[in-house]
């Protein structure tokens, strides 16, 4: 009986680890995936966008505002920041994909360094809300292992509804599909780009806000914490935002969770990278790229 319950606890811990990892990958990826999938721009400053959300939340919180309100403020700050970046920098690069990566990378350096200069080497950490649940020899954070996974799933559902069921979503997709035709149909494509970039930034900001109380120390180099997972997931998932993010996060977090659970964070990351390389070896344009190719081929022949 004792052996049984230990195994059960272990399994439970692994499951929580999976939820934790799944939430992290989805949340780290989704803002990047929206901007890449909808606009074809890889925002290499994505980690720093998340960081803006973290800093926004932390600064407001430390000013004595309750955490949920501080989080909303963090998201709002990141949206405004994202729109400014889109108008001043990113819009010059819509037809220059590789240049956009280089430019946003330069931006990433500038943001991280400016945060260091303005706010010093770290901000006070925020304690993780909701406490822990203990079972057998293990404890898991309720916030990280239950609350955030639920938020991640709700976010994907929300995005699905936004892009398939609302007028905005249909217009945005039409713009992405064929900007010329969209313009001819009277869609203000410029506004669509701003809005899409704003949503992507907002999601990055939300990720920052949500992880502000889960990061421990808040330092200007934490942006790269999110990058590895986000990049691997976008590469594996391919250009289709929701299905890509969901399938990549599902696949990767299994390996990440098992690796982390058995041998630590580094092994978890290594396993993810290996999965990504193997996945790309078989599906060079990601999971959804493969599905899309196949659909296009079918359509072309019909």
């Amino acid at each position, binding site marked *: 009986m004792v052996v049984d319950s230990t195994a059960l606890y272990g399994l439970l811990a692994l499951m929580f680890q999976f939820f934790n990892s799944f939430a992290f990958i989805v949340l780290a990826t989704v803002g990047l995936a929206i901007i890449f999938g909808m606009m074809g721009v890889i925002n290499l400053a994505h980690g720093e966008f998340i960081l803006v959300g973290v800093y926004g939340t932390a600064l407001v919180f430390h000013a004595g505002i309750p955490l949920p309100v501080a989080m909303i403020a963090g998201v709002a700050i990141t949206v405004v920041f994202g729109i400014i970046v889109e108008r001043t920098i990113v819009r010059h690069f819509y037809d220059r994909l590789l240049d956009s990566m280089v430019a946003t990378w330069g931006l990433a350096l500038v943001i991280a360094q400016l945060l260091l200069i303005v706010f010093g080497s770290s901000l006070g950490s925020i304690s993780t809300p909701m406490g822990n649940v203990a079972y057998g020899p293990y404890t898991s954070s309720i916030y990280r292992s239950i609350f955030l996974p639920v938020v991640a799933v709700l976010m994907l559902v929300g995005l699905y509804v936004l892009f398939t069921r609302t007028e905005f979503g249909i217009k945005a997709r039409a713009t992405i599909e064929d900007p010329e035709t969209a313009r001819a149909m009277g869609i203000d494509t410029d506004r669509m780009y701003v809005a899409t970039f704003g949503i992507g930034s907002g999601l990055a900001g939300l990720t920052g806000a949500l992880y502000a109380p889960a990061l421990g120390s808040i330092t200007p180099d934490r942006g790269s914490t999110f990058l590895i997972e986000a990049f691997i997931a976008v590469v594996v998932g391919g250009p289709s935002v929701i299905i890509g993010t969901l399938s990549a996060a599902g696949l990767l977090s299994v390996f990440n969770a098992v690796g982390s659970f058995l041998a630590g964070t580094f092994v978890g990351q290594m396993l993810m990278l290996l999965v990504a390389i193997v996945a790309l070896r078989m599906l060079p344009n990601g999971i959804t790229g493969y599905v899309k190719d*196949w659909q296009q*081929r*079918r359509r*072309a*022949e*019909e």
Partner: protein
Amino acid sequence: MSSSSDPTVRQTPAVAATGDATDTILATTQLTKKFGGLTAVDNVDFTIDDGEIRCLIGPNGAGKSTLLELITGQLRPTKGGIYFDGQDLTDLEPHERIDTGISVKFQSPHVYENLTVEQNLRIPLQRTDRDTDAVLEQTLEEISLTEQVEMTAGDLSHGQQQRLEIGMAVTLNPTLMLLDEPVAGMSVEETREVAELIRSLHDDGMAFVVVEHDMEFVTEISDQVTVLNQGQIFRQGPIEEIKADDAVRRIYLGENA
């Protein structure tokens, strides 16, 4: 049969798989390509003689481009084989097939827009052991771009770009040339120039497979026409016969209506 009387034409031995006519250069046997539940190319036995010009026509979705891509290796067949000049191409990589003497110009125009006309021609040419400068000069003359040699290819007119592309494919000195819609979007004058270019290369012994919708152009260059429909060979024969064929007209009208 249409083999040229030109003495420079290579009399290649028969393809093992077909085993008959001595001047067959390309043969596909039961070539089939399925995408999911859809059969894009269905059991096609297609042969080309050395030195002939064959036009491939058919309504949209008939499988013409798929057939070309199977021959060049961009796609792998679900079933069947491809034989060229005595060799089994079926399992060769696309670039290995080019080395057997096939050259191709795909549908969408792809010159190197940022490079000069000369550089555009040198890129394929440097793969061969031909005398680069002599062939360059000769090719420029054939495609009437001698004066534009230093121009950036992106600045050429559409017709000039198409001619340059054909010229690039020709510098490889192929035995067989595959052209996918070589005159799409061209003016009457430009179309006539391309037809002349193809005929003059044909006179030098080059065989052609040309996918084309422009029936006037087809009539101008072609000996034999193959009509594809729903992935299968529907009719095959001299152009005049095909044009007069009611069934061919029906599939065209039916699909295009």
